[in-house]
């Protein structure tokens, strides 16, 4: 958390509405800007760009803008820089950088760690940054020895002159190199010359984390720090009727009661006092805007919306006409409930607003937005707002939203002290911005040979983009809600249906439920892949074809998904006989530039509907595999998190608000429920793709398809409970 340098943030605009938070971020395209070292007043290091500095003590300090939330990005990104720089890994130190223009992710135009975009977004930039440094160090050595540069070679933090056997360390060369011109197009390494990329280097953050030394947001402290906790409305739209400010202020340690747009904050000198003050506050709330809201009414509302006209998102050919002429028609309705992020570290933020500056210490995925919001709330100009990103105790999309930052900045501004806002687990669960629940209705047609000729699809959900990018919602279509089915035009991420369907129609309807939603690991690729890949399985069955063959026939020109399917089928022993009660299911999905295919094996107890997933085989093509160990563990984690939504996860609502409160009633997957997961990374020359999320979407449909394979029971709703499996078995 050392680097706090700031640059002008003129590309940002936003507004903090009185009723809550509305953020719009628009940004200019990012260029790769090199600072000219020779313009610096005094040179103490070779630091030609924002990414690294080499000092005379022969240390390499790599500074990164992306947030480390467990996905291993600090290690993977540092490996790219160190590799091209030809630095000795043992001399490398990695630091979290502040908010600055150079750290804007070129894919996202924001300093934002989402969309599996860190490694793929910075791959070219970091290679070039490292290679520039290497070239300058070689040139410095050549000058020192008065020999041609092409006789010199960089090797493990030193430059060597083979002919004479001379060698100078990077530490010895750095100051001389710092005075040289920065090359615009440095020569990058060939893949065969990679020293770190493609190898499994131990992660840089693990020793501190395994020893309890790593500082997460909740662990951060600063002198004279106060605490704030909020009493929040128990139902959506609920307003406070009354509260006992005096009783709260009478609690020892309580300093101030502060009404905020999110609830009433109690500020105190200790967390314990803040909690006791909140209890004493005894806020009375009205019933809110949707007192009828519960799980049944939510599901009914989303399902009934399927009968209303939607807005056209994709129209290719004429699906309607094709369907009316199809030899065989298949129709199905699917539902996916709200699920919570439930990061193990609850939301929190520490802020200190002073007269002319504002400091924020926060586990955030979005430094650009954090800086903008803290500036707006504090009234301090953005360049005077310092964002110190701590380690994140899980992110999964939740920490890209700045609601907790707003609360800390408001409280600090009012009391003039550093304030840490702490959410309890219950608040974290009930004031989450969930993965959106969705309803889907699909009708597809097969010709006489069983070929898929038309697909008509309607989806309903809350809006993911409403708060992130409201201008991006065009004609009522929220593309991020449709990711996996439909992507932004021309996006290389391929968050879309990859099957070659001659006639495709997709329409979308925004639900009017008051429940806030936001990206959740893989965004809606997860729910949408469950629907698409389950339905494709239904079509294969209706066509009398093998589910693998049926898919491959629809991917004649889409080589990337084709290859992961072929690979996973081979590795999993697709087609080999199974004993009764066992089933095998296959699914594939492409998102964030990466294709993955899974085969799941399950055993179903046909008497009670319980089932066990015992093996999941994965093939993944993410292009260059920068950090293979990380790829494996990210896939394991994504599969596990997805399986959790298949087995149990569903947020419960009652009386107009959220009734799920803690891990006793919202119960994520446990160790004994996790199947063996085998990860096969395909050697690939394709463009680099993301890895934090693409392992998630194929999991749920692979399991549901395996349950079908075992029993003939098709379950079109997650979680797959024993009751729903049993009901489907009886229907089959």
């Amino acid at each position, binding site marked *: 958390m050392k680097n706090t340098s700031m640059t002008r943030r003129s590309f940002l605009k936003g507004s903090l509405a009185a009723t809550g938070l509305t953020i719009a971020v628009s940004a200019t395209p990012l260029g790769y800007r090199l600072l000219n070292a020779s313009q610096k007043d005094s040179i103490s290091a070779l630091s030609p760009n924002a990414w690294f500095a080499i000092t005379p003590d022969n240390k390499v300090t790599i500074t990164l803008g992306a947030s480390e939330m467990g996905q291993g990005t600090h290690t993977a990104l540092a490996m790219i820089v160190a590799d091209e720089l030809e630095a000795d890994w043992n001399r490398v130190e990695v630091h979290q950088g502040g908010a600055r223009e150079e750290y804007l992710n070129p894919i996202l135009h924001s300093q934002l760690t989402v969309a599996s975009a860190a490694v793929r977004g910075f791959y070219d930039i970091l290679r070039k940054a490292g290679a520039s440094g290497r070239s300058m160090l070689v040139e410095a050595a050549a000058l020192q020895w008065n020999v041609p540069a092409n006789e010199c070679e960089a090797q493990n933090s030193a430059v060597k002159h083979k002919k004479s056997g001379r060698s100078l360390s990077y530490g010895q060369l750095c100051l001389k190199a710092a005075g040289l011109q920065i090359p615009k197009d440095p020569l990058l390494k060939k893949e065969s010359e990679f020293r770190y990329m493609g190898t499994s280097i131990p992660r840089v953050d693990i020793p501190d984390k395994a020893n309890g030394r790593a500082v997460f947001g909740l662990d951060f402290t600063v002198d004279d720090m106060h605490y704030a906790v909020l009493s929040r409305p128990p139902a959506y739209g609920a307003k406070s009727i009354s509260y006992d400010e005096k009783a709260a202020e009478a609690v020892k340690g309580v300093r101030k009661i502060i009404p905020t747009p999110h609830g009433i904050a109690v500020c105190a000198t200790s967390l*314990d006092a803040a909690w006791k003050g909140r209890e004493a506050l005894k806020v009375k709330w009205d019933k809110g805007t949707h007192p009828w809201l519960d799980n049944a009414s939510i599901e009914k509302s989303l399902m009934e919306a399927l009968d209303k006209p939607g807005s056209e998102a994709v129209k290719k050919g004429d699906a309607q006409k094709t369907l009316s002429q199809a030899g065989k028609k298949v129709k199905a309705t699917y539902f996916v409930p709200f699920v919570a992020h439930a990061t193990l*570290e609850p939301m929190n933020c520490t802020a200190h607003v002073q007269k002319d500056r504002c400091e924020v210490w926060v586990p955030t995925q979005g430094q650009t937005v954090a800086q903008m919001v803290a500036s707006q709330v504090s009234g301090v100009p953005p360049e005077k707002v310092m964002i110190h990103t701590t380690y994140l*105790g*899980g992110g999964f999309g939740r920490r890209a939203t700045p609601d907790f930052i707003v609360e800390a900045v408001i409280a600090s501004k009012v009391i003039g002290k550093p304030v840490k806002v702490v959410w309890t687990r219950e608040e974290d669960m009930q004031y989450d911005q969930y993965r959106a629940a969705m309803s889907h209705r699909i009708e597809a047609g097969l010709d006489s040979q069983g070929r898929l000729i038309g697909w008509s699809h309607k989806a309903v959900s809350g809006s993911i983009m409403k708060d992130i990018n409201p201008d991006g919602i065009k004609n009522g279509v929220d593309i991020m809600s449709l990711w996996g089915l439909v992507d932004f035009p021309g996006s290389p991420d391929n968050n879309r249906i990859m099957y070659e369907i001659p006639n495709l129609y997709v329409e979308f309807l925004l639900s009017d439920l008051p429940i806030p939603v936001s990206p959740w690991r893989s965004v809606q690729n997860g729910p949408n892949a469950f629907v698409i890949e389950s339905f494709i399985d239904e079509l294969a069955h209706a066509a009398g074809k093998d589910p693998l063959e049926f898919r491959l026939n629809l991917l004649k020109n889409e080589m990337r998904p084709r290859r992961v399917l072929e690979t996973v089928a081979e590795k999993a022993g697709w087609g080999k006989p199974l004993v009764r009660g066992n089933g095998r299911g296959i699914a594939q999905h492409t998102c964030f530039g990466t294709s993955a295919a899974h085969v799941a094996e399950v055993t179903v107890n046909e008497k009670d509907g319980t089932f066990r997933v015992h093996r999941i085989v994965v093939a993944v093509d993410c292009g260059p595999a920068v950090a293979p160990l990380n790829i494996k563990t990210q896939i*394991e984690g994504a599969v596990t998190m997805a399986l959790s939504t298949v087995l149990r996860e569903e947020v419960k609502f009652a009386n107009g608000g959220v009734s799920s409160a803690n891990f006793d009633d919202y119960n*994520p997957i446990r*160790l004994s429920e*996790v199947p063996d997961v085998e990860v096969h990374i395909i050697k690939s020359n394709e463009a680099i793709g993301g890895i934090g999320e693409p392992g998630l979407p194929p999991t749920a449909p692979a399991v549901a398809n395996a349950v079908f394979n075992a029993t003939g029971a098709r379950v079109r709703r997650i979680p797959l409970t024993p009751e729903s499996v049993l009901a489907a078995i009886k229907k089959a």
Partner: protein
Amino acid sequence: MISLTVNGKNYNVDAPKDIKLLWVLRDYLKLTGTKYGCGIGECGSCTVLIEGEAKRSCEVVAADAQGANITTIEGLPEDHPVKKAWIQEQVVQCGYCQPGVMMQVAGLLVENKNADATQIMDSMDDVICRCGTYHGIKRGIKAAVEIARKEG
């Protein structure tokens, strides 16, 4: 005043009588390796050893732990088999739950020095890792058992 012995050191803390051990460790002693995850003993992130036994510090009233030897992740030696195994097997992702998970494994190894990996894994369903590192935790447990056995 609450008197506690944590990682071999004695502390006198001026804290409320009803405060839970977790918050004394974190907010008063600044031993923040012990994490708050749920506050109701469901997730295991706050696990510490009290007289060698793994306990949820969010559920223990600090005053009741007076006189006992308390060990937190910071007090577990760096060459402890569990710490060595966790680094060797690269178990950690976000790392927030791991100190608690590790303390629980360490406690199970105190309870039964000869426990095999399966026995330990069978006692790990009361912890939650949201990153889904359970495969890593299993590898870590296997490695820890092996290291402990080798070191006797």
